[in-house]
């Protein structure tokens, strides 16, 4: 193979990739944080005594888990605006789709976590006169949050990768910038390899922390 590697154009164009990285992070962290908050609410709704809360929450979770993320992204950019009559920017559409998608997965983590708490814990709290809300806040959630951390970290890692799909909406994130550079300079090998490495460097620390966290939790219990 007589390929001449040429990284000089990366040296010149790295600000483009950095800007892309910044947009990736701007998509990733807010949609994770919002998805977590929304997911907590949805997870609690899934377990609510009232069917009027539990059923719609279940439907929501299933819709987002059983359709491809790619169609969700495209739907929120091209289809959703027709429904609501407001055009969203590609970034906003992507942020919305990723947040809602993440919230569905987080809801399942929350539901599973809460259901893993022995029934006696609810009863112990109830027997002391605590309301459902007090029992959840003081007794149940503090026990589950720790147990759910590894699952949430995994979700975060997954989400970081999924942000790359936003490139199909021309959100100028890392993947988009990489493809742009690669087709401008016809240097896919150098450029796409670099993009992959940047993703790796971004995501690996989270993955490493998650593994350590899991080991520490396992050791404690």
């Amino acid at each position, binding site marked *: 193979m007589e390929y001449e590697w040429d990284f000089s154009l990366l040296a010149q164009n790295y600000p483009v990739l950095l800007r892309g990285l910044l947009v990736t992070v701007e998509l990733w962290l807010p949609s994770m944080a919002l998805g977590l908050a929304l997911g907590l609410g949805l997870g609690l709704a899934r377990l609510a005594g009232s069917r009027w809360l539990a059923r719609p929450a279940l439907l929501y979770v299933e819709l987002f888990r059983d359709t491809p993320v790619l169609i969700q992204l495209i739907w929120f950019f091209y289809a959703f605006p027709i429904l609501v009559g407001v055009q969203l920017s590609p970034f906003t559409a992507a942020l919305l789709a990723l947040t809602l998608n993440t919230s569905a997965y987080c809801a399942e983590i929350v539901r599973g976590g809460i259901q893993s708490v022995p029934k*006696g*814990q609810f*009863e*112990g*709290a*109830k*027997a*002391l*006169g*605590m*309301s*459902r809300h*007090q029992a959840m806040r*003081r*007794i149940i959630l*503090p*026990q589950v949050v720790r147990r759910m951390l590894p699952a949430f970290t995994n979700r975060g890692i997954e989400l970081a990768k999924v942000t790359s799909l936003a490139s199909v909406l021309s959100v100028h994130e890392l993947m988009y910038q990489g493809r742009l550079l690669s087709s401008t300079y016809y240097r896919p090998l150098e450029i796409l390899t670099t993009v992959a490495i940047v993703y790796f460097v971004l995501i690996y620390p989270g993955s490493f922390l998650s593994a350590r966290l899991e080991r520490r939790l396992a050791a404690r219990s």
Partner: protein
Amino acid sequence: MTNPLPETRGALLDVQDLHKSFGPHEVLRGIDLAVMPGERVAIIGGSGSGKSTLLRCLNFMEVPTRGRIALDGRALGRTGRDGTVAYPEGELCRVRRRVGMVFQQFNLFPHMTAVENVMEALVTVKGTPRREARARAEAELAKVGLAEKRDAYPSRLSGGQQQRVAIARALAMDPEILLFDEPTSSLDPELVGEVLRVIRGLAEEGRTMLLVTHELGFAYHVATKVVFLADGRFYETGTPDEVLKHPRGERTRSFLARHSEFAF
């Protein structure tokens, strides 16, 4: 028997025609029970007789299917037009503050130390200031002989110690009635005594209590009244001496015989 029993007047707890079904299975089939202040009722019976369900209905861990429960002369729940009784959560929370429960499996909160377990409901439910709640919790722990274990997590305590913390936790709420649901059934035999001694101490203070137990000897010495439950009904009721020493019913006799089969 739907007529109120004569002893109903002045009862702290008054249960009338209580029914409880799980699906098609009717576990309680019409229970009438009046508990006077200071009375100690031991509920005995075979497995599946409904004794735990009866106890759990009294603080609404299970919601009765039919019948009324009155606490200190006031009927609980709201009767609808169709005769069904609804129990709003707020009312049940208030009832549970007055009717404490100790479970077979202790149900201590594993993420809290012994003293935090005891003070938790004082703070969240009663709104007692933390410092005051801690002092009260420490006093209750001292009372069950666990003052020095106050900062231990439940996982560091023996079963008997955990159950004593659970008793302290119930006592801290100043309940008018205490319910014990087989409090020693999940303990190793050598740990049963320390828990029974604490319960006997409470009996000597004149506290009103209901106790589901397999410890018939303990029931004999501590209870003022024994009820034998079979198929979701009271089969025989009386003083410990009547029911445990001189049972009249055939089923009571065979139950007691099975229990003493391997006695010395």
